[in-house]
């Protein structure tokens, strides 16, 4: 009997219910970042599960890099130990569903790591954003295992790093400010080679936050109908 099923399975004649989500069998699946150029550079985008290390100073657009990705998630997004308050109003205007957000403010770095592991392991969160300083190799490995269990992605948002040793992460990005958006350095990518530096153009998504030379605002000409519309709103 078992042989027969094996044989039929071999011939692809058995339909399996779990085939729709072959989660335990995937190798290195990627999800789109929402930026076509970046997807090309990363051969498909962010890993669908695992640990992504993002080294950047706060306030240059590191969260905006992830927003198109977060917009597409259907499970929860846990935000752990953010450096300031997460502005739901801003997320709302950028088309992100704030109902999926879980903001966690732990009391110590240990608790932050514990919370991240719980969120990942549960399978209830598809993404976890963790602001954290230096991490040990074994801590990252633990997070990686938790991410595999729950099929989630954790982004380590790190600024002012002192350690130099490389961590066992799936993807490591270093972000620097640039006039057009962000300068992205891929320092590590599992199963791929290092890439040259790359400038991510965000001027179409956030024109106000890219340093472009623009005509002064005073010269704006507004049609009468539009002005009325704005006045009525």
């Amino acid at each position, binding site marked *: 009997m078992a042989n027969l099923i094996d044989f039929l399975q071999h011939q692809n004649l058995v339909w399996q219910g779990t085939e*729709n*989500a072959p*989660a335990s069998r995937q190798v290195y699946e990627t999800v789109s970042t929402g930026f076509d150029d970046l997807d090309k550079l990363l051969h498909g985008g962010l890993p669908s599960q695992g640990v992504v290390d993002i080294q950047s100073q706060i306030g240059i657009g590191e969260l905006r890099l992830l927003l198109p990705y977060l917009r597409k998630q259907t499970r929860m997004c846990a935000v752990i130990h953010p450096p*300031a308050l997460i*502005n*739901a109003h801003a997320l709302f205007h950028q088309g992100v569903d704030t109902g999926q*957000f879980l903001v966690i403010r732990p*009391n110590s770095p240990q608790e932050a790591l514990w919370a991240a592991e719980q969120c990942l392991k549960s399978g209830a969160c598809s993404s976890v954003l963790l602001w954290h300083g230096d991490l040990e190799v074994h801590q990252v490995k633990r997070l990686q295992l938790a991410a595999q269990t729950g099929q989630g992605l954790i982004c380590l948002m790190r600024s002012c790093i002192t350690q130099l040793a490389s961590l066992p992460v799936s993807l490591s990005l270093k972000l620097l400010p640039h006039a057009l958006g962000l300068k992205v350095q891929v320092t590590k990518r599992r199963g791929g080679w290092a890439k040259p530096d790359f400038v991510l153009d965000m001027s179409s998504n956030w024109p106000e936050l890219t340093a472009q030379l623009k005509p002064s605002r005073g010269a704006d000409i507004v049609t009468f109908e539009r002005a009325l519309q704005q006045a009525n709103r």
Partner: protein
Amino acid sequence: MALWLYLHFPQLQLDSLYHYKDQQQPTIIVAGRGHCVVQLNSVAHEAGIRQGMGLGAAAATCSSLCVHEYDEEQTRRRLTELAQWLYLNTAEIHLSGTTGLLLKVSGMLTMYRNITEYWHTLQARLQAQNVRYHFSLGYSPLAAQLLAEAKFDTLCEDSKQLEHRLGHLPVSALALPEKQHQGLMRVGIQSAQALFEIPMLELGKRFNTELVHYVGRLRGKLHHPVSFYQPPEVFERQLTLLYELENLDWIAKPLFKLLIQLEQFLKLRNKLTKSIQFTLLQRDCEPLKIEIGSAEGEYRADKWQGLCQLVLERTQLVAPLQGVALSVTDFCEPDELSSDLFSERCGTMTAAGLLAVLQAKLGEDAVQGIKPSADARPEFATTHCAPLTSQTQILSEVEFEPILRPNLLLPQILPLQQPVTLVQGPERICTGWWDGHEVERDYFIAQDESKRWLWVFRDRQQRWYLHGVFS
């Protein structure tokens, strides 16, 4: 005539103390102004202590004596617990005083094959509760009670034999006022049998009507109304620890005992609960109340134990612990499984389960959801709410034109201290005059020297502040 079963519990309070099975200490319970011994365990009995002894005499008899004061309230509570426990097998239970339960048997015999089988079921139930009891059957509530209190302890439903047994009881065993009792003794009526032999009419002539009523009810000739117990839908248990605990790690075992009881309680009713309340009774201090919640309904003792442990890790005791109580008042129905049968389950928990664990460890306030609210002032445009409660709100582009706001807002507005280049602005926000938080600000998007995008504003007095970061 209806058949009744009476269960008499002579030492309820003693039985409900928390004991380690192997090392029992002589324990007594004293009551009243004279501190007479009313309940004592077998070790105390072996040491020579007898019922009715004064506290001084008892303490002189045995040096390592553990003394508790009689607590009527606790006894009554325990009796109600027992009634609730037996309610699963018997529909009609009457709470008689603080020490007895009266069960109406005749109605239940249609469900059980015979009285023996019924009694075995009850016995098995009582076994689990670890209490001492005396029992008797009777054809009137009072007869059953008198026989049980006289330690009849025989399952006999023969009315002749019961009557005979009842007749042997002395008059002093009957619940009569002292005056009445003496009156009977004076005319030479010593036993119940002698009282029964007097015709009712004569009895009425010679004594007052109260005695006639009593005898009539005792013999089942007059109706004896009893009110039956209705179980409430709450779970409340208290455990008195025999030793004071100073370390919260040691509470796990007694706690688990209570949680197991909760599990049985919920399982039998096919219910779940979302929150349980612990009360830690500390010496000379206010009891410490702890509420433990689970966003998902749960009944299993080990799951609750896990959550309790996370909460207890954060708890500090002020004084040594003397007892622990568990109460659950809200119950919920188990919800239907709504997940896809075929999609592969990933992870170990549901969202609600995750939330329960996080809140237990980090505290309720540390885990929150966010939602936008309709307010033009940036600091009020984001409100924190209970997680998983906010509705899905997606911007529909037809209605609104998106406005640019920073993803991160500073918890407090800070004076601007670094040199910045203004990139865009101003955007004037001037509102809030009606509720005391008036703002009048010109907001600018600015970039500082390390190329960070900041959201700064200038107030009416031309002072500059930093309010957000375009992360």
